């Protein structure tokens, strides 16, 4: 198992993830991720899609992996990366089910996912994590190494391999149908809105 509960109640996750790891996660769980994340957003997904459709090899093996939807700002000299918070996940919704079908286990972003993605999380045993949008300076501190895997011409939208230690996130959509956004509103909505 690469999911363990730490003394502070936060779940420690190591990549790659197995079906069992994903099944142990529930919407609202706070996690710290250690291992590898791959970055990809709009333009990179646009290039992955034709490869998936033709059944060709992707620039990285998605099995057990986590994609982080982000386009970092440039690193200052001596830094690993610049600011690196999540972008809105729904723009990648059309691509996500087929990647989950290829064995991708997790995605990290912010905002709602489509019903099709949430269904695919259940069908393929996947998890959607939220990272704090707009906390790019803080999140940069958890990135220990960065290398470009593919599509360098896309600049900030290139696919990058990140080595992370204790990257903080929260489970938004689990593989059991749980949804933190729905639970949150239910818990805190008040009369008169």
């Amino acid at each position, binding site marked *: 198992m690469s999911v363990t509960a730490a003394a502070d109640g936060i779940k420690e996750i190591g990549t790659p993830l197995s079906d069992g790891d994903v099944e142990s996660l529930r919407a*609202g769980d706070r996690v710290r991720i250690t291992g590898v994340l791959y970055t990809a957003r709009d*333009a990179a997904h646009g290039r992955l899609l034709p490869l998936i459709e033709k059944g060709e090899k992707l620039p990285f093996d998605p099995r057990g992996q986590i994609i982080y939807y*982000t*386009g*970092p*700002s*440039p*690193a*200052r000299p001596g*830094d690993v990366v*610049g*600011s*690196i*918070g999540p*972008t*809105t996940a*729904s723009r990648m919704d059309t691509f996500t089910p087929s990647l989950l079908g290829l064995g991708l286990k997790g995605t990290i972003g*912010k*905002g*709602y996912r489509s019903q099709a993605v949430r269904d695919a999380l259940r069908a393929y045993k996947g998890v959607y994590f*939220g990272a*704090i*949008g*707009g*906390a*790019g*300076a*803080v999140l*940069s*501190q958890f990135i220990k190494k960065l290398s470009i895997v593919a599509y360098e011409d*896309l*600049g*900030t939208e290139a696919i990058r391999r990140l080595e992370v230690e204790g990257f903080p996130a*929260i489970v938004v959509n689990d593989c059991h149908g749980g949804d*933190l*956004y729905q*639970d*949150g*509103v*239910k*818990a*805190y*909505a*008040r*009369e*008169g*809105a």
Partner: protein
Amino acid sequence: MRDVHVSAITDAVKKLCIEANLDLEPDMLRAFDGALRRERSPAGKQVLQILKQNAEMARTRRIPYCQDTGFVVCFVELGQDVHVTGGGLDDAINDGVRQGYREGYLRASIVRSPFDRVNTGDNTPAVIHVDVGPGATLRIMVMAKGGGCENRSKYKMLTPAEGVAGVKEWIIECVKTAGPDACPPLILGVGVGGTFEKSAILSKKALFRELGSPNPDPQLDALEKDLLDRANRLGIGPQGYGGDTTAFGIHILTYPCHITSLPVAVTIECHAHRHKEVTL
């Protein structure tokens, strides 16, 4: 006439772009503290604390507050007794953006065409709005506008019969649909009246008012406070994780409009509300 050389404009814009992205204005920092006192949700409180820490880290470590360092939206109030010398005003502003984004290690997020989507590499061009009025000064207001929240901005042409009640329902609907996608706590800039494009421009300009300051029009001030209270009852909370702080502020600007029309534009702004201004 007073001469202002374009190099002074370029320098000013360059500094505004860099500082906006690294050093949040005091009104935002006060908003975090105010929300932390009221927020009931532990997850919401934790988000607000991390955002405060993020602001501090951006300022001290010179790492942008958000990796989306924005589309530069620039409002210029040009005194008609100012003579801009040495080149064009738009070019001077775009030179400032170019230099600021390169020297400040800020992300280039602009593509040259909505269709071929090739990145311009230096975050130019800016969106520039110029108002000419009396005086011999040049006021430059810069906002680094994030794309995620901008994508949730909306426009609706209401009928006059729908009135203020219709406007209120529409604004609350905009907060709901923005939800977690737009990085709450949000700030809403609202433009009511004018024409199609006038209301949209007002909705952007409304965001430059200091957060927490009253609307100078008492009726609009009451409307803003009512809407803010309603928005914060939705339960969306910081990052949409549930809570009482869905919005930090709702700022409304109005303009006369046609007897047939009631246009309402809502610019959705995230908590990374990066704005700076200078008067030359």
